[in-house]
């Protein structure tokens, strides 16, 4: 009997499995005190900001430059500190 229940139920009902989701800690953009602003006329598409962004919100497009998803950006300022061309500056919210 017990054996049948275990076999027939789908795997998610039998063991505790977490599903991937964007924003497990909510909209982390609300933690931010300083906002990174990108000046794409200075951007040389070196990808430094995208590689080092800890929240994975910066996307560099080879044609247009960098964009930031402000819903989840925590405002740590790593991108502004790293940018070799000073294309990103931090501004208080």
């Amino acid at each position, binding site marked *: 009997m017990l054996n049948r229940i275990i076999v027939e139920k789908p795997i998610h009902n039998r063991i505790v499995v977490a599903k991937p*989701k964007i*924003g497990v800690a909510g909209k982390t953009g609300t*933690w931010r005190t300083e906002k990174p602003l990108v000046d794409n006329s200075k951007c040389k598409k070196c990808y430094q900001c995208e590689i080092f962004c800890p*929240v994975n919100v910066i996307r560099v497009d080879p044609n247009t430059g960098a964009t930031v998803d402000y819903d989840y950006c925590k405002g740590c300022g790593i991108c502004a500190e790293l940018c070799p061309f000073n294309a990103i500056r*931090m501004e208080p919210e």
Partner: protein
Amino acid sequence: MYSRKSPLPYKMRDVVLPGDAACPGCPIPIAWKVLGAVFGEKMILVIPACCSSVVVGPYPYSSIKASVVHVAFASAAAVASGIAEALERRGITDVYVVAWAGDGGTADIGMASLSGAAERNHNIIYIMYDNEAYMNTGIQRSSATPYGAWTTTTPIIGKTEHKKDVAKIMIAHGIPYVATASIGYPHDLYAKLERAKSIHGFKFIHLHAPCPVGWRFDPRYTIKVAKLAVETGMWILYEYYDGKLRISGPSKPFIDSKRRKPIEEYLKLQGRFRKITPEKVEEIRKYVDENWRWVKLLS
């Protein structure tokens, strides 16, 4: 490897999802992005109690598109070796088992199970991400905390013992691959993980990861501090395989002690070294020179 068109950016976009529960400026998701670039979703992360188990996020959701197994503090290597053995019996070869533990879960509490798994030579990659104290529980001293550093359990004069060098201990185990890496050099970490992926057996990577909260610096300097640790010679990047030690690219210029930056530059940036005395700086310098002497001896 360091070309302008690097293999990293597009591959590292998918696995780590935005909105994780890490502090601002935390280097853990940066390292996971590199892991994602190497393994994709085909990895099983074994995470004991550490900051990372918080960063993944609370049940029923997780912030990483890979299988994560949360285990008790001392058992990361033991559980990972069990999973690796089960995969091997089932004939699954394209999934990689990565044990991801902090310095407490590796150098202090998980040392016995780590040593056992290394001796049995299971096919896993063990990554010790070293933020040099128990950051998750409130910055207590661990055996990987460096000399002279402030923690909440060494509050006045700082730690009076040197850092435990786990990579050296793992080299002594005679496992196929040992490496040290830094969060400041993701391309170097990428190359090391690619090499570890191609080797069968127990692989150990010691990853240096600055923690803005515990080390008392501004979150924006995470990468700067990680790079300074390498540039001052405090942290040496190397790989050990086939019985030979190879110093990695970012550390190569600093073999010559004259080209290293002064250690004070690294210490000044961090609040945990605020009370350090000149005698202690001299002691750290001696320790750094001794480390370099050992590395040069083996290479």
